[in-house]
């Protein structure tokens, strides 16, 4: 019997020929990602850090992104503690405030490679499945232990196969597809499992794959993977990573899957996740008129140049509707820079957008674009939980960058196919 992607990678890292679902393996991942929560993590292990130090200065990847620039004395002090920690242990992979959202930074700096294992104290660590890595989220305590010892146990997951057929239509994007998938599979439907995307995936760009893998955790997947292919190789070449820097892992043809769920991409239409669950899927067409107070374009899900460009193409030469706000937060400095070079940001600003520095921005409700009671927002983020944007009496709808831009234009839920020429 062949092995799935997860089995192959976990077998390789535990130095065995074969592992089976349910088996527990102990291994050392390539990297541990932490962000603003690094301050709380190192706060748990002060005496141990003094005595034993960290396992390896190249092991941690630390990115300040969640509350940047700092919003108050407490978050500023956390950032300062983290900078001191980085300097004390000469940590090589540190990215200070302004560099971007941790997941975007990890991928664009080539720190997540095909066939590698990364863990992070952030649930959206599953994003690196987009480059064919096995990556998953852990809690802060696990991260503290990893800093000291560099190893953890993982249960070999069962895998689910999702063949994607055909091609997305005009005005329909990867976000529409993953919202539909989560709606079908449910918010707990992939619990403890590794999801593999197969089929006609060669038509999906790295950015589109990122959007999809990023939301794997919203169906409680442990990993959400596009096994590496030509698109992956081309992406790495474009960021200066040579083919021989990694060894791709692809599942065996005869691997055994827990379940298989096929989706016809050509049948996907613009969709939203309505409050307060990510699997509360509706098509834009079915929802009817909904006014929005705020429209948010950004996050690790959809804050890349290509997302900003889609929105700019809809808003170019127009003004957003009176009574609605448009907030834009690019996913990284690199992505922001691309959007500055070709005038994408100018188009958004001219249309009435407020542009924030690269970072998580309003996604987690800690600062920048917090909602008021009774307000409604449409966002390109990955979560619409009650209270997520800082106010439990606000409503969050999740959608593609095109749907968010089209909705900003009219101040109400709008099918982007109506405004795309």
């Amino acid at each position: 019997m062949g092995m799935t992607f997860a089995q192959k990678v976990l077998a390789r890292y535990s130095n065995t020929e074969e592992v089976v679902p349910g088996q527990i393996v102990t291994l050392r991942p390539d990297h541990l990602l932490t962000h603003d929560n690094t301050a709380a993590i190192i706060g748990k292990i002060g005496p141990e850090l003094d005595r034993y130090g960290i396992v390896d200065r190249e092991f941690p990847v630390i990115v300040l992104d969640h509350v940047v620039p700092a919003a108050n004395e407490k978050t500023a002090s956390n950032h300062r503690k983290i900078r001191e920690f980085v300097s004390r242990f000469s940590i090589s992979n540190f990215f200070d405030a302004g560099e971007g959202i941790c997941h975007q930074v990890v991928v664009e700096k080539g720190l997540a490679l095909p066939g590698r294992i990364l863990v992070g104290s952030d649930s959206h660590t599953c994003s690196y499945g987009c480059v064919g890595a096995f990556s998953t989220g852990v809690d802060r305590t696990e991260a503290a232990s990893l800093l000291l010892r560099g190893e953890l146990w993982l249960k070999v997951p069962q895998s689910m196969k999702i063949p994607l057929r055909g091609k997305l239509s005009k005005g329909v994007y990867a976000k529409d597809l993953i919202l539909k998938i989560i709606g079908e599979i449910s918010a707990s439907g992939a619990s403890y499992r590794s999801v593999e995307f197969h089929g006609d995936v060669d038509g999906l760009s790295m950015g589109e794959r990122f959007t999809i893998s990023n939301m794997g955790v919203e169906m409680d997947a442990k990993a959400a993977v596009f096994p590496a292919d030509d698109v992956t190789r081309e992406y790495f070449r474009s960021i200066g990573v040579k083919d021989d820097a990694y060894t791709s892992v692809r599942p065996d043809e005869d691997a055994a899957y827990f379940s298989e769920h096929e989706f016809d991409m050509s049948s996907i239409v613009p969709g939203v996740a309505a409050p307060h669950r990510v699997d509360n899927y509706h098509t834009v067409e079915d929802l009817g008129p909904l006014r929005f107070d705020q429209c948010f374009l950004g996050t690790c899900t959809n804050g890349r140049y290509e997302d900003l460009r889609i929105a700019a193409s809809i808003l170019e030469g127009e003004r957003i509707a009176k009574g609605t706000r448009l907030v834009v937060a690019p996913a990284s400095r690199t992505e922001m820079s691309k959007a500055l070079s070709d005038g994408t940001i100018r188009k958004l600003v001219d249309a009435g957008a407020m542009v924030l520095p690269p970072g998580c921005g309003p996604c987690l409700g800690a600062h920048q674009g917090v909602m008021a009671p009774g307000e409604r927002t449409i966002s390109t983020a990955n979560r619409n939980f009650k209270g997520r944007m800082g106010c439990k009496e606000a409503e969050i709808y999740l959608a593609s960058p095109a749907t968010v831009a089209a909705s900003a234009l009219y101040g109400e839920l709008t099918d982007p196919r109506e405004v795309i020429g």
Partner: protein
Amino acid sequence: MKVWKYGDSVNTDMLFPGKYTYTCSTPDEIRPHLLEDLDPDFSKGVKKGDILLVGENFGCGSSREQPVVGLKSVGIGAIIGKSFARIFYRAAINQGLILIECPEAVETYREGDDLLLNVEEGWIEISGNRFGFPKLPEQILEIRDAGGLLEYTRKRLEEA
């Protein structure tokens, strides 16, 4: 011992709002906000040894561990659920908080029922009906029984 009952898909924002994630980390800072957006009476009323009885996918969402740290620090005896989100489950092991997956027990329980729990032997009894649940693998029990992952890691570092 009180049983606090909640439904399906209780996410981490309901257990501990994200807006406090970077300002509250210690048990004392966490406790007043525990379950704030789900049940405002919880943090005032909860007592040591109380049980949570929950639906599917409990703890879904963020990897923030304040919900687990908070529930452990108020002395929750166990959370019995239909199912738990993966990261939450792992975080509970790492804090030494006992989670039990037993959908039948959750379905059966009615307010006022007597509930007995024996973690060692692996059973729950609700007004005379007994439900079994599987034990965790040895390797993982070792972490939980050490009092959590950091205690376990400290021991391993000392041994090395």
